[in-house]
């Protein structure tokens, strides 16, 4: 029972990060190979606050999420302002993620590559459920606000978006920061669930897994990536598949999706229309 519970909690934590990346990738159309770094910022910030400074857990969680948002600006401002090609941006943020991990491995306060053990076990299933539900709700509200509409417009056509009055740089930066906050929250929950974190948990491979869930679930959908990330975590865990075979499958999946169904496994349109009905943007306009 405990085993199943822990799978569910882990899947829930992962879903929050995937949801964040989905806002950035699925809805704003920017790709990132570095979001694991923002999970790391949340994990380390909140863990250090509760571990060394005995800050209450909720405050530490919020601080972790906020710190991730702030750190995202460090990489976001120069790269997004420069309007890099989309693949260059994905690579720049990859470089940032890798550099950040190396820094974590060498700081004293993070206890270097050995990692931080003995973090208090605050994360429980109800907390994860509340956080996830809140995250979904806020994501929904965000996406139908003027900022969300701007993000989606940029994904569809950046030049047309600008001509609809969308501020390109500011909107992209906001989307990055929001996604980083989600990742930071996920990291804080993760640290206080596993009670042990170390830098190798936040590598390029983790970033790739997050991205794989978003792409597989379907670009421009909230529900798709959530389902995908649950399946990604829970299924192999339940079947007790060795980690490396899981990664073999992730790799293959990415290639197959790009070759056969770049709009995501569940298909772009069904999911987006499913989502649209839920948010009711068009409610009452049916003829």
């Amino acid at each position, binding site marked *: 029972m405990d085993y199943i519970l822990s799978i569910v909690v882990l899947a829930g934590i992962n879903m929050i990060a995937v949801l964040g990346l989905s806002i950035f990738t699925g809805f704003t159309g920017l790709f990132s190979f570095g979001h694991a770094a923002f999970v790391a910022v949340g994990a380390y910030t909140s863990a250090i606050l509760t571990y060394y400074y005995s800050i209450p857990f909720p405050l530490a969680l919020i601080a972790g999420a906020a710190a991730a948002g702030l750190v995202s600006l460090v990489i976001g401002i120069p790269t997004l302002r420069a309007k890099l090609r989309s693949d260059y941006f994905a690579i720049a943020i990859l470089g940032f993620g890798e550099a950040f991990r190396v820094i974590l491995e060498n700081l004293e306060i993070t206890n270097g590559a050995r990692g931080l053990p003995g973090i208090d076990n605050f994360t429980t299933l109800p907390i994860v459920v509340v956080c996830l539900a809140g995250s979904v709700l806020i994501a929904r509200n965000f996406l139908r606000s003027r900022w969300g509409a701007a993000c*989606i417009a940029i994904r569809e056509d950046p*030049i047309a978006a600008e*001509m*609809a*009055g*969308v501020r390109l740089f500011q909107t992209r930066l906001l989307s990055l920061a929001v996604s980083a906050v989600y990742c930071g929250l996920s990291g804080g929950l993760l640290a206080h669930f596993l009670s042990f974190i170390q830098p190798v948990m936040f590598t390029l491979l983790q970033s790739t897994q997050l991205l794989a869930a978003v792409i597989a679930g379907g670009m421009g959908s909230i529900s798709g990536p959530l389902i995908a990330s649950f399946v990604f975590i829970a299924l192999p865990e339940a079947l007790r598949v060795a980690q490396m075979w899981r990664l073999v499958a992730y790799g293959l999946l990415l290639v197959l999706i790009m070759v056969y169904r770049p709009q995501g496994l569940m298909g772009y349109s069904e999911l987006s229309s499913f989502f649209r009905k839920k948010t009711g943007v068009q409610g009452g306009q049916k*003829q």
Partner: protein
Amino acid sequence: MTAAQSPLLSVEGLTKNFGGIRAVDSFSFGVGEGSITGIIGPNGAGKTTVFNLVTGIYRPTAGTMLFRGEEIGGDRPDSIVRKGIARTFQNIRLFNRRSCLENVLTPLLQREKCSFTGAMLGTPGARKMEKDLCDKALDLLSDMGLKKYASYQANTLPYGLQRKLEISRALATDPTLLLLDEPAAGMNPEETRSLANLIAEVREKFRVTILLIEHHMDLVMNICSPIIVMNFGTLLARGTPDEIRGNPKVVAAYLGKGKKENERAEG
């Protein structure tokens, strides 16, 4: 309503280089308030580049662009939109995978000031504003005869309606000047005629000034005055449709010259 009154947009010495190529070469023109001004010219004359310069997508190499007396050269596209210039594109650029309503709603939302936290938490105030804007978007769609397509995904519309939707989206930014880049491209003569009517209607109903690039001469000659002719990135002629049609320079730019004339040009 004559063009001469007060130029809404006045462009002086506009120049744009791409690498070694001069796409626009000290081009000057004005657009009178309330007019439907047409820009025509042979292939590669630099017409779309002018649109891209006026809307801030390109930065001019030299020249000034005054819109309602204010310099707009060097402004970002979104701030030019806020000042009141909207446009459509030669190859339609819609938010393809969004509904028609959302296409029009997006610029409406960008014009509103609203509280970020309010929107995130979904406060009643934020909800109400969304609802109001939805209604406004629907009104606009019904003005343009697109109401029954409100929930259709934009790229599923037939071509002619996509053009209409793109014009609707541009109108949703509340423009004073509307730039249309080949609105009749890909249309048959019948569709072109109804587009001409629509453009005239839009000008009346939304009180906008219109500047359009077009190759369908019937459309240009029927609804535009004045007409500006561009060739090799500069102004070749300017005048009423009849003046343009009778201008030998314009005819030569379009049809080319015969052997004798070419040889005369040599000497």
